[in-house]
């Protein structure tokens, strides 16, 4: 089964949905521009579908390594001060973040 090149473009609504998924509060103006640009880009990249690659294995790693491990041994890390050094807000040794709406 070869992957069908996707012929339908990407809509403004889809771009808005993707932006939400990616936690990007894009403006309406941006949405207009991006939707057009991404539609063009998608049209160009969709040509990967033209390649007959049914029985071709995908490459996820350019380097043919396997079984790279480290021993279960301690390695010095950061102290609390270093860890919190760049924090926008901290309290009692912890990172302070605004109230979380979603569930764990």
């Amino acid at each position: 089964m070869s992957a069908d090149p996707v012929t339908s473009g990407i809509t403004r609504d889809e771009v808005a949905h993707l932006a939400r998924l990616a936690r990007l509060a894009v403006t309406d103006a941006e949405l207009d521009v991006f939707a057009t640009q991404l539609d063009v880009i998608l049209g160009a990249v969709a040509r990967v579908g033209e390649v007959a690659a049914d029985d071709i294995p995908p490459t996820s790693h350019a380097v043919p390594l396997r079984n790279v491990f480290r021993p279960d041994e301690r390695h010095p890390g950061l102290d609390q001060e270093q860890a919190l050094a760049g924090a926008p807000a901290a309290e009692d040794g912890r990172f302070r973040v605004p109230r979380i709406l979603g569930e764990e």
Partner: protein
Amino acid sequence: MTTPTLVGYDEVLEHFDPVLGLEVHVELSTNTKMFCGCPTEFGAEPNTQVCPTCLGLPGSLPVVNRSAVESAIRIGLALNCSIAPWCRFARKNYFYPDMPKNFQTSQYDEPIAVNGYLDVELDDGSTVRVEIERAHMEEDTGKSLHVGGAAGRIHGAEYSLLDYNRAGVPLIEIVTKMIPGTRERAPEVARAYVTALRDLLRALGVSDVRMDQGSMRCDVNLSLSPRDSGVLGTRTETKNVNSLRSVERAVRYEMTRQAGVLLAGEAVVQETRHFEEASGTTRPGRRKETAEDYRYFPEPDLVPIAPPVEWVEELRGTLPELPWERRRRISAEWSLTDEELRDLVNAGALDLIEATVAAGAPAGEARSWWVAYLTQQANSRGVTLDALPVTPEQVARVIALVASGELNNKLARQVVDGVLAGEGSPDEVVTGRGLAIVSDDGALVAAVDEALAAQPDIAEKIRSGKVAAAGAIVGAVMKATSGKADAKRVRELVLQRCAPVRG
């Protein structure tokens, strides 16, 4: 939201067949985290067990902990799974502040272990085979403290505080296949499975498996299928199940709740629910707009794992005797009935008896001591058997002393009392209290003659062949020697002394 109509349990089963699924997350007790060399100890000061990798700092990279992979393989083998000849890590992408990278490095469609089973014994002795879908490796998240809301809950909180000490700790997720056909025993089966899994993991030594500390977490999946239809119902997932008892209660509650919904003509909502310990009920989690799309793809910063067959077999050799294998062996070796074995397990005596046998005592004697006298002692002191201040080796010694004739049973109990009182080892108590059996025949003969002289009519009876009368003389000798005589030998001597003198 309307208050759910609770249906009687029997009524539930008249209409529906429950289908169970259990997901258990196990925190491994490795020295260091899954992908970095940070310590994994419980209870450290916040953000003191972190590094660029587990904090997900820009530029950081993961490196797989070999020991975690070994544990994963051993768990897979112990669950009778096939170990994948080749597997990979994948990124599970979603945003949440307790995940430093906003993706979790996990395994998706290429887990390390698949298709196993666990035979679970229920209270009545029957066995259920729970099939295991997969076991895979992943990393734990950090911990959040919600401030300002009710009882530290996330709802109504003003802000949250994040501690990433736990982020990156190795987790193994074990997922069962759907478990149908349990009928009214579904809650019991769920509990028994989690219990058996816990015992197994403990025997493997891979985790502390403390549900109360979060090193073992259970999510309960349940759906109701119309009775005998084979048509699957809509499933809910219940989280926050923090004890074995909660597993059972959560299953039971969901069964009755879902039955109530369905019998009222409504549909069960596919959702994640939370178990509420206090009430034994579940409440819905926050409704999501759409099902989460995690956009899984192979983790590019890690290379595949292809465990060589030799390594897997080497690890198979390190598996301890698994709990049910051990029980089977003990049953056979000690010729126990299932009920007898269960009694021993419940009394917590199995390990102690085994250790006593390992120290050289015969199984029957060992069992007898622990189940009778020592249990009595434990009860009167209000402690468990393993809290008694006597070791299996010491009990074995006492048994050996009785076998060699140096002690009789009554003396043996006194020796044990001495050990329990802290007077020392059995041998030290024997010497200290002077409890050794008088085995010197000379002294015994003298005592026998004295007793015979004191009771001439009894002596006459014995001489005339009424051997049973010897008992009274034996009793007198035992009393005279403060019990420190081998009764059997005394009786022999009595009969000898009363034997007709041949002219």
